[in-house]
């Protein structure tokens, strides 16, 4: 140990210091959201050069409603990945939720339940699916890959069983359909943006004040101010842009509320801390007195429940469910979104926001390819390549982190 190690070195907090620390972290393999933002900028630039409609307000609102369901499901995936587990059943579990709301709202059906109540019932039932699958993982110790693979097959069968003879159920309930198809008026959109900015400012500043009071302030006020300004510009910019067309979609607001809520759970609550701990070192968590089984059960419930909510949004967007509900690329898009956004497959590293980041990339590529008129074969190949790049980046940054001892 050199003499320098014996002094307490306070990390600087000037803008230059923070920039240098960030650069050091990137060099050491802690890349954060940087690759996603760069990738997104490249994708947007490419499609804009191919088709100038890509950046219109109409396509912007389209994109938001297209990606809402995948983002919602991917939020649940982030939690499962944080544990170092996997949930392959989310696709068809989301389909199950679509079937449930569709069945419940059938007018003059045997159990007509409408609107929000139907959605709540669907989320509760899919959470119970998560509890069931999670029990096999957490209590019996069956690998989650196999349990949820079995779930994938089983719930697909249940969907076929449930609506196989009719093939398709139309959703006429306007509350359910509005989860994907409602657009706020111009004024309402601006009020929501103002409210969001106010809340963001309040929480940021209260954090600064609290750290000050405990004498551990490391906040750079210039950066705090820049964050506030940036947030304000993005919030109002998005709403004003969307207002040039149909207005800001409800689905977009829903996704943002979900992101904020689950980020809060993951990073600010005891439960979230324990999820990271179990994902990082389950044995250490157990010895620290954390109920590991309980955490695993809850995380699988979150995963299924969020898949359920995502399934409702999917069904609402199509105004119907059919035999393909929850199939196709739903599962892989959701998992790919979480991973592309930067959540590690190895557990313990990642953030809820990566669900949005990854979904942005996947949905932007899909939207752009449709708009430019390439065939869907290209879509699959490009998405596959991006996923491979993201996982490779994860593996490489993990090695670098180990080598740099971070």
């Amino acid at each position, binding site marked *: 140990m050199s003499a320098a190690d014996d002094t307490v070195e306070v990390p600087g907090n000037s803008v230059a210091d923070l920039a240098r620390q960030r650069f050091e972290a990137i060099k050491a393999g802690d890349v954060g959201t940087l690759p996603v933002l760069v990738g997104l900028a490249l994708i947007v630039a490419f499609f804009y050069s191919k088709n100038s409609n890509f950046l219109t307000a109409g396509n912007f609102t389209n994109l938001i409603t297209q990606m809402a369901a995948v983002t919602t499901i991917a939020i649940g995936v982030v939690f499962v990945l944080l544990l170092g587990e996997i949930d392959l059943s989310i696709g068809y579990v989301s389909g199950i939720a679509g079937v449930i709301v569709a069945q419940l709202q059938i007018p003059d059906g045997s159990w007509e339940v409408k609107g929000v109540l139907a959605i709540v019932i669907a989320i509760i039932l899919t959470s119970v699916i998560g509890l069931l699958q999670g029990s096999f993982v957490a209590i019996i110790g069956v690998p989650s890959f196999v349990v949820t693979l079995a779930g994938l097959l089983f719930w697909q069968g249940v969907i076929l069983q449930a609506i196989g003879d009719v093939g398709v159920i139309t959703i006429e309930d306007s509350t359910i359909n509005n989860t994907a198809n409602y657009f706020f008026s111009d004024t309402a959109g601006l009020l929501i943006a103002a409210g969001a900015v106010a809340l963001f400012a309040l929480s940021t500043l209260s954090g600064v004040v609290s750290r000050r009071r405990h004498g551990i302030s490391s906040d750079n006020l210039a950066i705090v101010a820049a964050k506030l300004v940036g947030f304000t510009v993005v919030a109002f910019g998005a709403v004003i842009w969307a207002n040039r067309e149909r207005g800001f979609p409800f689905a977009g607001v829903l996704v943002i509320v979900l992101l904020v809520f689950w980020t809060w759970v993951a990073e600010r609550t005891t439960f979230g801390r324990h999820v990271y701990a179990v994902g990082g070192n389950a044995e250490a968590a157990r010895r*620290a007195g954390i109920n590991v089984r309980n955490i695993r059960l809850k995380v699988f419930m979150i995963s299924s429940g969020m898949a359920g909510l995502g399934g409702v949004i999917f069904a609402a967007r199509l105004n119907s469910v059919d035999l393909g509900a929850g199939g196709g690329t739903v599962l892989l898009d959701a998992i790919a979104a979480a991973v592309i956004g930067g959540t590690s497959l190895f557990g313990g590293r990642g953030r809820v926001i990566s669900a949005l980041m990854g979904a942005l990339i996947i949905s932007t590529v899909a939207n752009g390819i449709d708009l430019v008129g390439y065939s869907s074969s290209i879509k699959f190949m490009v998405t596959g390549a991006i996923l491979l790049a993201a996982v490779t980046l994860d593996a490489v940054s993990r090695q670098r982190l180990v080598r740099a001892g971070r």
Partner: protein
Amino acid sequence: MTETLSPPPAAATSTPMLEARGITKSFGSVQALDDVDFEVSPGEVMALVGDNGAGKSTLIKCIAGIYPIDSGQVLFEGNPVSIQSPKDAARLGIEVVYQDLALCDNLDVVQNMYLGREVHDAIFRLKEPAMEARTVETLKGLSVTTIRSVRQSVASLSGGQRQSVAIGRAVMWNSRLVILDEPTAALGVAQTRQVLELVRRLAAQGLAVVLISHNLHDIFEAADRITVLRLGRNAAVFDRRATTQQEVVHAITAGVPTKVPGISGTGEVAE
């Protein structure tokens, strides 16, 4: 009570923090501990040594509530206690720092220090600033000055720093007795010194410390007394100042497993 017959040893004027009498524990047909006595006083570093299979780990796990004892009695500050689970042990103020540290690499120092005991409000919101301030205070109190930021991840720390965090976590909870299982096993020379100094500081703060180690050099540097187990029985208790490494090695490898009558800290080898 046979204990009252022996004269009170000069070193231990107060009641021992922990006193285990006649602990017996077997796993099936294997007798892991046979009528073992053990004690440690406040402000004292008691080393626990013995060859592999001597019963060190089993004894510690009995004290920590991981294994239930078959027979025998445990007194904590003179009162008979029943330690059935790690929670019971924690409630008494007994903390164990395991060899493999049990830290989460992906979490930072504060998060590890508070792992499983996070401070939160009514809606489970973590009180980060309070936890961070207390962590800094605790590490400073232990004179752990080599950790640059308590917000860096534990994976970025050296072995000695990680051990310091693990020990800091153990003492933060008003603990009375800290058991360290091979705390220097994987450390270099300078880091070993750091950790041993930390061990001495714990005792200086009035905690009872049990130090398990294979390294006699470390033990002679940090311990006040040395309990030797052999084949699941007491072999000897030495006063560090009145013995030599040869004597201890002899007790570890060839000591006659004997019950030491009323462990007295005065250092006589069991006859």
